[in-house]
């Protein structure tokens, strides 16, 4: 090809070089921008045009090559390679799209790597897609990794349904504010317009959140009001409001409403649970009768947070407490008239601010086993398991050194309080869950309400303990009871010095040395034969 006496053939190699550079540039730019933007498009077009130009400059060379033996065989080989790649891609695509149950077998003891079938089912049942956003600082890297692994298990069920990302709230505070993040290591799940917040991430928590996506209707729960109970809105005094846990409940699709029992004849029929959160005065008999009436309904539930009388009414209060009497007579849970003191497991210098990390086995506490909960001024509970038709579970207990101080005046004693003969001795129960096996009504009682107050709700696992209690009471434990898989815990046997040295000798010296000696013998023999 000639253009005004200029032989264009000489430009063909340059056109090929430009073509290759154009395509490489397009690839690199696409990797950098991750979008098919103008720069990528231009590079691609330039590259392709350069190749076309090269062919036009030397059309003879191309046709000669194409008719040659090498081109025929080469084309044949290329075709076979493309066909094989196509088959392999298709095969991989088909297998990767298989349901996780058909694709994976978990050989680990207790199948700890796979989701329970219930979780797989709920993941499939979620309408639409789910997006997870985790807020983790660099200090929570290992927790973030375990969350990622959990999310990957859910994603494996249906990769198109779940996507996730992690945001560092310190480097991206705007995003953190948008989500209202108040705690490092919080995970949000979003589906449509719904958003669920998970503070202690576990497979069960993620599955529970997914369940709630499948149940769009709001569930109504009532907090009693009018007797000095904790407020539902954030107040000036964080000790007397529960807005933190109320917000968490709202995020779990609860419709939280106050209920003044004095102004109503009965507990509303839509109540999924009734919550009595730290009344400063005992509830009158009339109110307790309404609660008792409500609890005769099937699947009714009560969460009672009852502070020590000495805290609410002073040290010398001796009046009756109809709610305490009702719980004792009908539910086998007695709230003792004491204050729990623990010199060993408490906030330093504050023996009344007890820290508990011993839990019973219950859907409420199963996921808190590695966390502590904090009760600022609590009373102890006593329960019986002999009442017919009642299934009672201890939820939280103090350390063995705690006792229930009944002599409140001794708290002001300069020498400090001490366990006396009449005091209950530790470990003391501060939380109990009871279910009526006939009516399926449920009652949760805690000897403290402050643990759920705004001032400490974000401490330890306090908010989770309260929210889990409400979830259990309202039967939102569909998936809280994921099949528990507890493989036997493994530990290293005690290794004495001799055993340790033997392991060192065998693995670091003997084994490599044997290989080296064998190699040396072979080398020596080969030299002899040469």
């Amino acid at each position, binding site marked *: 090809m000639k253009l005004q006496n200029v032989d264009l053939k000489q430009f063909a190699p340059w056109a090929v070089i430009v073509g290759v550079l154009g395509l490489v540039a397009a690839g690199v730019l696409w990797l950098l921008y991750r979008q098919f933007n103008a720069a990528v498009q231009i590079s691609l077009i330039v590259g392709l045009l350069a190749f076309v130009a090269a062919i036009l400059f030397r059309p003879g060379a191309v046709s000669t090559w194409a008719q040659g033996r090498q081109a025929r065989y080469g084309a044949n*080989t290329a075709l076979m390679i493309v066909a094989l790649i196509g088959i392999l891609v298709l095969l*991989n695509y088909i297998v990767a799209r298989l349901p996780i149950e058909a694709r994976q077998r978990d*050989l680990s003891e207790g199948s700890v790597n796979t989701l329970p079938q219930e979780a797989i089912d709920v993941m499939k049942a979620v309408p639409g897609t789910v997006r997870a956003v985790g807020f983790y600082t660099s200090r929570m890297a290992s927790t973030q990794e375990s969350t990622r692994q959990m999310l990957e298990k859910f994603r494996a069920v249906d990769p198109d349904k779940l996507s*996730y990302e992690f945001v560092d709230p310190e480097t991206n505070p705007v995003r953190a504010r948008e989500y209202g993040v108040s705690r490092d290591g919080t995970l949000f799940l979003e589906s449509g317009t719904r958003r669920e917040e998970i503070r202690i991430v576990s497979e069960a928590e993620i599955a529970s959140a997914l369940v709630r996506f499948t149940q769009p209707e709001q569930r109504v729960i009532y907090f009693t009001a009018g007797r000095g109970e904790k407020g539902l809105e954030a107040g000036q005094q964080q000790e007397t409001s529960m807005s933190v846990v109320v917000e968490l409940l709202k995020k779990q699709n609860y419709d939280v409403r106050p209920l003044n029992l004095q102004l109503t004849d009965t507990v509303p029929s839509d109540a999924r649970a009734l919550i009595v959160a730290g009344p400063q005065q005992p509830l009158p008999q009339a109110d307790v009768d309404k609660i008792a009436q409500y609890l005769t309904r099937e699947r009714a539930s009560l969460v009672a947070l009852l502070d020590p009388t000495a805290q609410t009414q002073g040290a010398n209060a001796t009046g009756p407490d109809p709610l305490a009497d009702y719980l004792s007579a009908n539910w086998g849970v007695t709230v003792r008239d004491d204050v729990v003191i623990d010199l060993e497991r408490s906030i330093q210098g504050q023996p009344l601010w007890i820290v508990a990390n011993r839990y019973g086995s219950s859907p409420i506490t199963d996921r808190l086993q590695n966390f502590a909960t904090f009760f600022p001024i609590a009373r102890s509970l006593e329960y019986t398991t002999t009442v017919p038709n009642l299934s009672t579970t201890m939820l939280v207990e103090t350390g063995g050194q705690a006792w229930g101080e009944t002599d409140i005046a001794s708290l002001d004693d300069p020498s400090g309080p001490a366990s006396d003969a009449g005091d209950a001795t530790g470990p003391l129960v501060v939380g109990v869950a009871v279910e009526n096996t006939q009516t399926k009504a449920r009652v949760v009682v805690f000897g403290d309400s402050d643990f759920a107050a705004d001032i400490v709700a974000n401490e330890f696992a306090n908010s989770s303990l309260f929210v889990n209690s409400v979830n259990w009471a309202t039967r939102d434990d569909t998936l809280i009871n994921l099949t528990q898989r507890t493989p036997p815990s493994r530990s290293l046997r005690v290794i004495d010095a001799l055993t340790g040295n033997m392991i060192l000798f065998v693995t670091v010296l003997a084994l490599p040395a044997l290989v080296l000696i064998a*190699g040396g013998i072979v080398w020596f023999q080969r030299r002899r034969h040469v």
Partner: protein
Amino acid sequence: MRNAWTIAKREFNHYFVSPVAYAVAFTLFLVLGIIFNFNVATSTIGFFGGPPQVTQWVFGPFVTLMLFLTPGLTMRLLAEEQRTGTLELLLTAPIKEWELVTGKWLAAVAFMCVILFISAIYFVIGNAITDPGLDWGVVGSAYLGFLLLVAALMAIGVFTSSLFANQIAAFFATFAISLGLWLVGLFAPQGETGIFAEVVRYLDISGHYYDNFIRGVLDLSSTVYFVSVTVLFLFLATRVVESRRWR
């Protein structure tokens, strides 16, 4: 297939008279031994203490080491035949190209099986010092996945060895392709979605092992992936050898 078997046996025996194979095995066991002892020692100290993860202690570094050692084991297979001119001789014999390639690959995999068999000593020790013993399901899965991964890496090695007459060039080419497949996942950070991220993450050869087999999960898609890589590179190697007839 009999020809492939004959070549495999010949190459397998050759490994045991090759100083490179002994150097590879020595390096492997020395490094694994040191890391194993370090893990045993630190697990008994309170600060680092935790449940003993013997499978991770052994196969974690083992897999990473294979990235560097596989090229050493495969670089000679076809490159040497080309350098000495014996490849032409072989091609004139009544033997098919795929039999030659498969035989070489089988020999390399069989040699690794011997190394794997010896590595069982770490699990025998691990079982003795762990209460109540190892989770053998996880160990079995880790072994199976390792074999599949090594088979794929060996196939890459056979392919690059077919490309060059120079062993050093074959070594670095194998290392480059293996490293590329190892690190390709970096182009799709965790959490990123979309077809590109999905494909890139799927191509990540280490992810298939670390996300599944080493944890005790037998995954069909990871198995198919490893087999696909093996088949593809053996096929490519066969085509490269065959191309000598018409190039």
